[in-house]
């Protein structure tokens, strides 16, 4: 059974984490796969404070929210447990009308049959849909160009311009605009003066987040007449794109257009670039990808005081956290030691 937590929001503090840990450890031994006929057995929590309730025969009562305040905490009271550290707590799935969706009846029709809720057609189904043949040219790849200065800035710019015009002719000017292609790519720079562009670059580079600054706020202050969408559009369609182009030329192996603070230096200053970490990484990988090295023996040596630190049993609150080198418990006892026979790797 999955442990259910209270509907009321718990303060995420050490004491509640500690409580969760103990109850979860007792739960783990119930986590087997009973046959479908075994009825659910509500139990009284050893910690008290929760009252058993009958599980209704008709679960639709539950969906309508009759059961609200005190869900059962399904914990056996007489369980023995040899080593609580071997079983990390399961993150509970919360239950109640504040969590689950209300399931509609399957009636085969919808009162909302307005056409506007089906999307507005921008490009209709091609006429050749009814044929199975795919003779018309779709999915052409890159063609080699015959420019004398092939690969130069001029050559690249020319081919991008040609591609843009081909697409515009291909789908029609109206659809080109409707699909947002007017505001894609370097063409966006046409809406900005050279001075504004220079100022934009200066603001981004002189207000890095790593120094507690926010270039975005500065941009909004500096260009009050610009909408946020215009600023975002310039940032990705011109600024980041140009920066990536420079990376491609000077440091292609480390090219990373997702690092908002990356400053590209020319080859003469590469060795002094303090923005780059001294980490060897495989090509195509961002340096921010944590790679867990399970072969590092030093990670199996741990400070005794940390074993009882309940933070090791907390769940990541942030998706963007750059995690520490794994749960100490998993490292010591291994994931496979929970209730799965440990066998050798292939």
């Amino acid at each position: 059974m999955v442990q259910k937590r209270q509907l009321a929001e718990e303060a995420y503090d050490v004491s509640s984490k500690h409580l969760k840990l103990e109850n979860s450890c007792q739960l783990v031994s119930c986590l087997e796969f009973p046959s479908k006929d075994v009825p659910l057995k509500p139990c009284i929590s050893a910690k008290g404070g929760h009252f058993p309730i009958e599980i209704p025969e008709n679960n639709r009562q539950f969906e309508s929210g009759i059961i609200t305040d005190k869900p059962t905490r399904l914990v056996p009271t007489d369980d023995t447990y040899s080593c609580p550290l071997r079983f990390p707590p399961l993150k509970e799935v919360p239950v109640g009308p504040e969590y689950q969706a209300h399931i509609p009846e399957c009636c085969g029709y919808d009162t909302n049959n307005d056409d506007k809720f089906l999307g507005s057609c921008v490009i209709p189904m091609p006429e050749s849909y009814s044929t199975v043949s795919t003779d018309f040219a779709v999915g052409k790849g890159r063609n080699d160009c015959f420019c004398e200065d092939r690969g130069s800035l001029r050559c690249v710019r020319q081919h991008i311009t040609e591609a843009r015009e081909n697409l515009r002719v291909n789908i029609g000017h109206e659809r080109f605009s409707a699909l947002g292609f007017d505001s894609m790519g370097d063409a966006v720079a046409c809406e900005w003066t050279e001075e504004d562009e220079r100022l934009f670059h200066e603001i981004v580079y002189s207000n890095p987040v790593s120094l507690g600054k926010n270039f975005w706020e500065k941009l909004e202050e500096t260009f009050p007449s610009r909408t946020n969408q215009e600023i975002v559009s310039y940032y990705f369609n011109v600024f980041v794109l140009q920066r990536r182009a420079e990376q491609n030329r000077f440091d292609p192996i480390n090219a990373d257009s997702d690092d908002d603070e990356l400053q590209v230096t020319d080859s003469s200053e590469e060795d002094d670039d303090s923005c780059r970490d001294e980490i060897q990484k495989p090509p195509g990988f961002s340096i921010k990808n944590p790679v867990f090295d399970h072969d590092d023996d030093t990670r199996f040596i741990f400070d005794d005081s940390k074993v009882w630190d309940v933070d090791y049993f907390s769940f990541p609150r942030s998706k963007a956290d750059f995690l520490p080198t794994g749960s100490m418990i998993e490292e010591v006892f291994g994931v496979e030691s929970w209730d799965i026979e440990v066998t050798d790797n292939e």
Partner: protein
Amino acid sequence: MRSKDRISYFYDGDVGNVYFGPNHPMKPHRLCMTHHLVLSYDLHKKMEIYRPHKAYPVELAQFHSADYVEFLQRINPDTQHLFPEEMAKFKLGEDCPVFDDMFEFCQIYAGGTIDAARRLNNQLCDIAINWAGGLHHAKKCEASGFCYINDLVLGILELLKYHARVLYIDIDVHHGDGVEEAFYFTDRVMTVSFHKYGNLFFPGSGDVKEIGEQEGKFYAINIPLKDGIDDTSFTRLFKTIISKVVETYQPGVIVLQCGADSLAGDRLGCFNLSIDGHAECVRFVKKIGLPLLVTGGGGYTKENVARCWTVETGVLLDTELPNEIPDNEYIKYFAPECSLRIPTAHIENFNSKSYLGTIKMQVLENLRCIQHAPSVQMQEVPPDYYIPDFDEDEKNPDERIDQHTQDKHIQRDDEYYEGDNDK
């Protein structure tokens, strides 16, 4: 087998011009790049393109609580400091920052998935694509993991009006907790999530033991994986499990979340899938032949996201794309190689055969607990579907999996898709 699938593709140009903030990994601009690449390969010549309507607050409240929707609508970066309690209550700030045009962004991506579901319900298409959607962490009353509105839940609720059983498949590297939680107590939605689990990886849920509760018991499936899983291991496990799920559950429609952070080299992910491996899963689900709603999801190395979803648009259109990316506005993002495929990394696959075997065994055992007893839920007869055959016991895992094997086409009396769709 019916004739070629009719594909509806949803896109709104405004969705890419929002910014979560400096150094935030989620960059909606990846959607502009994807869309541009799709059209650069001329794929618009094989499908119809729709601009979705912006979902109304009342539509969002079909799942989310009214006060949460209302707060999302009125809060903005300049006023957020005035509402610290609500910001905390709805888990906004940090991972889910308040940014300009945030609510409109939510309306667009949610509207896309809702419209996609409705087109499928009305049999106006066989496959509907909304790369802007797939934000699977959002909860009924709070934001989570860069997700504010759970478009997948909203889309599934639409599909449930026409289908007794909906199958949800999630191949994002993160557990699809928001969708699972929403449908944890019902057997009308089966949620199947393949994700990294352990080492405090977000969101922390998704153990194989999470199987649903009460009426929904055995209707939540979780496949927890470790770092470094490769194409062979992943696709084999995926096909084995999904085949069994479809055969057992007999859904009327499938929703597939294609989070691209399960690719090698993702900024936040830790798997080692190539684009071909990721796309193989999409191909397999398409081949089943059921109505299909495809969404995006995670993906934090935006060039690879664009590559992946372009390849997968091609897969859904039965079009193999050449590796050389044609000239387009964003070609510099793909330079210097300008190739559609990406290398996998030389990292260890911590998913041993025995571990994967154990997980598979537990999942299949749970599926056996779902009986085919006649009930209201099972009385709806699903349309024609086809479970692509494959040999999961093949000796040499490096060999190409042969999909041209015995036909398991199942005939039903009341076909949905008899003849061409004239609409």
